[in-house]
């Protein structure tokens, strides 16, 4: 049945390899390669789709029609963009640090791809179900700060340098409230395993038990992926394109797509921790679990786009004040209140 179409395919493949008399280890390796290929295909398609969706959403919010000329209803627009960006000349500024300049666009995709290992696409459809899933998620996500900074530093451009400095300041100072907000959920679940968190939300999603944590998480996530109102990094009207001002063609395409890959990941975490992952709301289980997961991701992505096309940009020092003086104390208070709630909860003996 459609529900575990992928799980069934994996079992069929494993039995096929076993029947062919190959050692079990070989079967696992092949299976893992197929899983990686599946996830890569998912990322490629969804990133291309999100760029198109962002431009269409921007247009619909602004009373105009988005791309509708290239391909049926404009669907091939992003493909045309990528095709053009691939064939552009790669310019390396003379004063740039060549190796770092060329390496950064490649490296920017590494943390994003690593994170897709722990994404719970559906019922037991998770590549690697680490028991420290959420911890792994944040550990790898914070690597991209260095890459943004190195990209800006290497292109030897004053605007890029300022953009890079802002990137470091923003992403580090918004990791703290993000992690503290997640702590509330982890305390209730008791484990950091993705599937445990989802199973703990069988009857009530954590968005209802932890509304403050959800709001803090969404704000910090907007800052983490450098989207308005926190897009200091690439403030068009101030420092034009931040760290990737010197990148043209494929270099710029990698930065551009990595930004959207991060957006998917942040929405994945939001759905897993707060919107009950692949759990069907009100028991409508006839729709497969991975479809629910996709619907929730794209709802969260739409909310981030809604923020982007409504709000202006915040200033650097206001960003820092808001991060440290408002979000961090708020998330600490949230942990405190959750602690008391759990204690009372246990004391009453529910």
């Amino acid at each position, binding site marked *: 049945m459609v529900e575990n179409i992928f799980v069934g395919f994996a079992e069929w493949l494993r039995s096929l390899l076993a029947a062919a008399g190959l050692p079990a280890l070989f079967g696992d390796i092949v299976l893992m390669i197929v899983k990686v290929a599946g996830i890569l295909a998912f990322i490629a398609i969804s990133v291309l789709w999100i760029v198109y969706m962002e431009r269409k959403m921007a*247009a*619909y*919010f*602004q*009373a*105009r*029609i988005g791309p509708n000329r290239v391909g049926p209803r404009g669907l091939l627009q992003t493909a045309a963009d990528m095709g053009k960006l691939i064939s552009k000349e790669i310019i390396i500024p003379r004063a740039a640090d060549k190796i770092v300049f060329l390496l950064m666009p490649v490296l920017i995709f590494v943390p994003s791809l690593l994170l897709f290992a722990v994404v719970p696409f559906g019922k037991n459809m998770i590549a690697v179900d680490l028991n420290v899933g959420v911890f792994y998620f944040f550990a790898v996500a914070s690597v991209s700060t260095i890459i943004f900074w190195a990209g800006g530093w290497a292109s030897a451009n004053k605007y890029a340098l300022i953009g890079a400095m802002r990137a470091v300041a923003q992403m580090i100072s918004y990791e703290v409230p993000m992690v503290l907000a997640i702590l509330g959920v982890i305390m209730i679940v008791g484990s950091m395993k993705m599937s445990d968190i989802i199973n703990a939300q069988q009857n009530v999603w954590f968005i209802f038990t932890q509304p403050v944590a959800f709001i803090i998480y969404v704000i910090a996530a907007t800052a983490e992926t450098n989207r308005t109102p926190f897009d200091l990094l690439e403030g068009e009207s101030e420092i034009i394109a931040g760290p990737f001002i010197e990148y043209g063609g494929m270099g710029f395409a990698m930065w551009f797509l990595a930004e959207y890959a991060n957006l998917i990941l942040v929405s994945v975490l939001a759905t897993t921790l707060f919107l009950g992952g692949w759990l069907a709301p009100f028991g409508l289980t006839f729709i497969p679990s991975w479809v629910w997961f996709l619907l929730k991701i794209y709802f969260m992505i739409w909310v981030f786009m*809604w*923020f982007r*096309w*409504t*709000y202006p940009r915040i200033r650097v020092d206001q960003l820092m004040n808001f991060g440290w003086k408002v979000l961090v104390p708020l998330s600490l208070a949230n942990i405190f209140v959750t602690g008391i709630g759990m204690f009372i909860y246990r004391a009453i003996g529910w």
Partner: protein
Amino acid sequence: MFGQGLLKGLQITLQELFTKKVTVQYPEESLPLAPRFHGEFVLDVEQCIACSLCANACPNKVIEIETAKLDKKRVLTGYMMRLQYCLFCGLCVEACNKGAIRFSQKFEMAKYFRDQIPLILYKGEPPVQEEQGNTGITAGEAEGTEV
């Protein structure tokens, strides 16, 4: 309360999401132009008496008129507008009291090569005796290197 303005902003963009789009899809639907629109020029050769009032009224000396003497009467033999200098201000149309030079509604004047931009509105050879009825050639099919 602090977030009140932020929520109002979200509400407005959500409303705009579902309002009708105002886009006029250019190549298929075209915008209705006002009757007085300053488009490309059209010359009615019968009316034109080659008095070059329009050429003098133009702020940027865009119009170039060639005339020939035909038994004491001045006849128009060439009327060229260097559109690359034109301001489209309409002073020439206003100055012409015969109403020979007028604006058309055509605005797609883009060209690939620069020497195709000057608009040759009339290139008749000087009539030998009587007045040959060269009908006015609108901008579209004037001969020459027009694309």
